């Protein structure tokens, strides 16, 4: 397979993690502009684990998901009492705070005659695990999609569970959900933790794919995109944000005519879709209609 195609597919897979992360919070009715912060925490955590501490990749990715999920829970406790615009601004503020902290973060270790590690705004180079351990680009692509498939399978199970119904109830009307006996605050914190872990896992994969991260990578642009993918693709199914990612990175990347105007095209697409289909292409109504096609009609009565 062409290296460029492998690169684009890898990007689609990795961005899907942060898109799913933002989508999970959208499901509970919260708009987060700050999922890039957990992506950043995951990227730095996993990079430090393999490049500086010599951890194996699997452990580093688990660590990146755990630390980002933990950070999301810590942030969720005070901020999830906020709603709507206030919550969105709080998440954006947190993400910028994290980015600025990484601008000041220096932790370098001499490895094989070379200083390796986060170096403030100069970034973190030398996350070479996949090259030093002969993990091929196709192998790494397979790992990305294996983990993405596991996440999607988790979401499919979630949709069929009481927890998934509870998340959607909270997203529709959290007061009504609380009146029905749901522990809204606790469930929102659980959603925030899972969303943070997903973003952190994506960040860990990203750091190892590119071998380099810097604070600028994790600015608001990434957060806005991750949110937009769910809004474009649709809130009806976990495949929605993936569709959003494929449209942006896959379709717009393959149509090189847009080139430098791509962000303008993407912004216009989001604006049009929000007017025409406020809950995205794969909204709940369409997912329900598609689902009915696969449900057997009940047997005719006597």
């Amino acid at each position, binding site marked *: 397979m062409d*290296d*460029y195609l492998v690169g684009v597919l890898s990007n689609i897979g990795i961005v899907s993690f942060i898109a799913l992360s933002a989508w999970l919070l959208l499901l509970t009715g919260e708009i987060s502009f700050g999922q890039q912060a957990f992506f950043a925490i995951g990227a730095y955590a996993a990079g430090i684990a393999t490049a500086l501490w010599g951890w*194996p990749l*699997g452990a580093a990715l688990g660590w990146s998901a755990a630390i980002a999920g933990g950070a999301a829970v810590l942030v969720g406790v005070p901020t999830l009492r906020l709603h709507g615009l206030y919550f969105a601004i709080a998440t954006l503020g947190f993400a910028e705070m994290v980015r600025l902290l990484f601008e000041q973060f220096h932790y370098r270790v001499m490895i094989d005659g070379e200083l390796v590690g986060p170096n403030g705004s100069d970034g973190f180079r030398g996350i070479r695990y996949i090259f030093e351990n002969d993990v091929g680009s196709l192998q790494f692509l397979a790992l990305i999609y294996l983990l993405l498939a596991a996440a999607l399978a*988790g979401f499919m199970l979630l949709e069929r569970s009481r*927890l998934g119904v509870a998340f959607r109830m909270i997203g529709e009307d959290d007061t009504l959900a609380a009146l029905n006996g749901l522990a809204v605050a606790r469930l929102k914190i659980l959603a925030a933790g899972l969303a943070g872990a997903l973003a952190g896992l994506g960040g860990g994969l990203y750091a190892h794919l590119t071998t*380099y991260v810097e604070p600028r990578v994790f600015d608001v642009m990434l957060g806005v995109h991750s949110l937009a993918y769910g809004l474009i693709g649709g809130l009806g199914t976990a495949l929605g944000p993936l569709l959003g990612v494929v449209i942006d990175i896959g379709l717009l990347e393959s149509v090189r005519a847009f080139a430098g105007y791509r962000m303008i095209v993407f912004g216009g697409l989001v604006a049009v879709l929000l007017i025409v289909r406020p809950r995205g292409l794969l909204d709940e109504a369409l997912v329900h209609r598609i689902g009915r096609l696969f449900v057997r009609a009940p047997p005719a009565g006597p």
Partner: protein
Amino acid sequence: MTALRLAGALAAAAACLSAGAFAQVGAQAPQAQVKMRAKADVACRPTSTALHYDCTIRLTNARTGEPLGGVTLTVGADMPSMPMMHSVRPVAAPPEPESGSYRARLALEMHGDWALQLNLSGPLRDRVVAIVRFEPGRAESRPGG
């Protein structure tokens, strides 16, 4: 409680899946610090075509400082401020007569800071990232890149 049990079961399943998937590469971790690493110095200059730049890349062995010849080099690019959104298709960088020196012509989508991904294959498989600011009429590498 059912909800929390389900979430726990999902997390455990994902962890098992990950552990199995990474067992092979994880087992190879101890040898990670003995492989040769590449270091790159990149100098780019504009061409007569807008947004096209000629880049000279000097590869050296990061440990010994010796020129690194005989590798196959491709150069791609991504914008750090818009990660994974603007990827430049990797172009081949053929070797120059001077050992360890390679040349590539990049066609960018816009001016600004770009992370050049130098992908080495052949005797050494590695990736070195160099940050270069491309402006109309000039290009400047960030120190340490």
